[in-house]
């Protein structure tokens, strides 16, 4: 995680350690340096829970950048229509809803520990009443499930997909 100021990075580390995240202060690689000379190394999969904690604790940061790769989160989705249901896939996360009722029929994919929890929270609820995965999940898998969920909502509001 990159920061504008050194004191923001130090505050971030303190907040994260206080919430039992395993993190450390590091120097950002020169190619990724955008702000100060200090970054916080996190487990990338925990990005979503960490970003939510920062919003709650008012911690400012510039960006989350993977050490390897292009660093762009996969944003595209794929849509599959079954007879009476629509499945939206973001990454390997899928959310399926009934086109007549907007009820979430299934959620699947991924492998992070919050996904079975999200599955239990979403199933059999109407898209408009269900909690958003990004509000109750913690991991990158949950973030991708939220991307699929968001697309389902858009399709439902347009007239059922």
């Amino acid at each position: 995680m990159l920061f504008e100021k050194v004191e923001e990075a130090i505050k971030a580390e303190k907040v994260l350690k206080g919430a039992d995240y395993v993190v450390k202060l590091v120097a950002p690689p020169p190619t990724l340096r955008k702000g100060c000379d200090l970054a916080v190394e996190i487990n990338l999969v925990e990005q979503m829970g960490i970003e939510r904690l920062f919003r709650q604790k008012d911690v400012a940061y510039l960006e989350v950048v993977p050490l390897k790769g292009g660093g762009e989160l996969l944003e595209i989705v794929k849509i599959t229509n079954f007879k009476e249901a629509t499945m939206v896939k973001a990454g390997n996360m899928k959310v399926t809803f009934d086109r007549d009722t907007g009820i979430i029929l299934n959620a699947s994919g991924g492998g992070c520990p919050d996904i079975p929890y999200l599955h239990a929270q979403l199933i059999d609820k109407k898209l408009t009443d269900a909690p958003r995965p990004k509000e109750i999940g913690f991991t990158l898998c949950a973030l991708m499930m939220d991307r699929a969920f968001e697309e389902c909502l858009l399709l439902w509001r347009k007239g059922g997909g």
Partner: protein
Amino acid sequence: MLISGTVPIKDLPLTMGEVRFEGEFLVVNDIKIPCTQGTAALISATVATTDYLKIDPPKVLLVGDNGEGMGSRLLYEYLIKNISDLLPDVLVLHYCLPIMDLMRRLLESVERCSKRPIMIADASSMYAAKAAGLASKFDIFTPDATEIAFLADPDATHPAYINRHLFDTDVTRTPELVDAAYQLKSAAKLLLVKGEIDYVVEEGEIIDTVSEPNIPELEAIGGTGDTITGLVAAFAYAELELHEAAIIAARANRMAGKLARATPGTKVWQIISQFPAVFKEYLCEWSGVCYVESNRSMSLT
């Protein structure tokens, strides 16, 4: 056999025991766990299979984790410390927070075991193994179409960060991705790539594909990827050749979907409950396992 993974019951402490499958629930040491997506689905499929084959049920090591990671860390640390005493024939690593350093330490502990278990990883345990550069230490991975793209991406540490052109690939490019994953040493010795066509791959060579019966609805049902891994694990534990275990698992999962008349709203326990009927009807034809005696000895015809 030992299956380890997290379940979505936040307060569940580290729990080890034998399991049974009761309708919509798994029961471990009198604790009821809903049979939904994830480790519970995997275990339920394994138990349905070991029950049918009349072999020992798996032991399970479970812990509650809702994504914050504390349970996952406990799980890794317990295995790192105790795996050489537990000494399972088959070790299945499933849902947990992918933590590369802990996966490295776990593999070091496994290497010190007097007898190396058959190592199977799925879900985020597979992510951790790939990201830590340890994939080739595993015997079986069971990726889906996006996850094989992740294994084929040299830079990705999670499927959410795979290169867009890899996500855009269709099923016909799976062989290319398989090849790339092996070139990068990001694949286990055997891959069962789940999808519209299931590919069984051994040391980089596609040795079989399974595409019938074609039940597209299975993709929507949370947990049907987990059940395939559970089936593979059970058949590997029953001492079938690993590629044979994978082929039968792929066929059985599809056939269970057909018998359950799967729709996008079907729950995974409804698929699992069809496995005994599938085995009764087809296992002899598929594998030659036609008569089952008690405890780890099966007669072939």
